[in-house]
């Protein structure tokens, strides 16, 4: 019995929950703890900017949210109308990301199946296998950071 519980615990800790979402038809995963929420796409105003992929802000009530153009970074086009808004817990504060209208899912992945990259890219930290397909694992807290 004890052995069984210990075995279960081991199983629990070897799993990681990720949010799987799609942008322009391509699926991405991100740690569940890095996603604050999924909401309807809000009103947006463009902001002339020299920061790569950050060139608009959205607002919810009186809260101003910078928008990260994930589709632009991966040269994808979002055709969903209306898209959804993923609220990412960026290290500089909450950030909005435009994603496809397909509702993201929570998925547990085996930590052992996650292949970490060499660390040069702070955003794409590795790949994980979901439904037998490799999916880029993103670090949403580092969106916009350049590869070393």
């Amino acid at each position, binding site marked *: 019995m004890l052995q069984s519980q210990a075995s279960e615990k081991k199983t629990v800790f070897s799993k990681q929950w990720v949010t799987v979402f799609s942008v322009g038809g391509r699926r991405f995963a991100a740690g569940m703890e890095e996603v604050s929420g999924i909401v309807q796409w809000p009103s947006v*105003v463009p*902001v*002339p900017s020299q*920061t790569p992929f*950050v060139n608009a802000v959205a607002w919810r009530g009186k809260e*101003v949210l*910078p928008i990260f153009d994930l589709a632009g970074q991966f040269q994808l086009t979002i055709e969903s109308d209306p898209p959804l808004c993923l609220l990412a817990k960026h290290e500089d504060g909450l950030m909005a990301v435009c994603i496809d209208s397909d509702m993201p899912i929570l998925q547990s992945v085996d930590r052992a199946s996650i292949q970490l990259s060499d660390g040069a890219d702070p955003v794409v930290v590795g790949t994980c296998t979901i439904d037998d397909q490799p999916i880029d694992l993103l670090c949403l807290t580092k969106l916009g950071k350049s590869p070393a």
Partner: protein
Amino acid sequence: MSLLVRKSRSAAPTNVNQQLIVECGPMRMSIPGKGIRGLLKTIETTFQDTITLLGETYEKSDLANRLDPTKTVAPFSSQGRTILCSNGVWRKAYAVDRIISLVEIEPSDIVPLPPHFRGAEREWFAGLFFFEDALVLIINLDWLVTPTDVVPWRSEVAAGQTSLKSEGGLMSVFPSSQT
């Protein structure tokens, strides 16, 4: 009818600043009222590189183009206006697509540009505020009028601790706003 819209909450605002909201393409931006010296119809200045008003000469530019070299304001629109701006040291005239409103806002209504913006835009914009359920970008007056090849020489100005002294204000442009 006055352009002025008062957004301040108190009946007798003491620390408000005026912002002239303009439209450039899809963007709404505001120019601090303390830096505005005059307004002209763009169509009347289309073929001029400089504008002289009350003995002072303003070099003409396109605001949309200053922010994004791939964009320009519509040159022959009847709604287009050219705004004469100065910070007391430098002068410049900017064409915009149209004037939306003149508003008074309190400093507490101004939201800083989120820290995620890390480029030159931090120098271009002094913050944002809400107007008619949308966000408006406040243009940094000193950046707007200072020639691109000039570096501020006063350390406190460069550090953003004080602004350059202005010579006048919107009151002379919009007499009705004094009431």
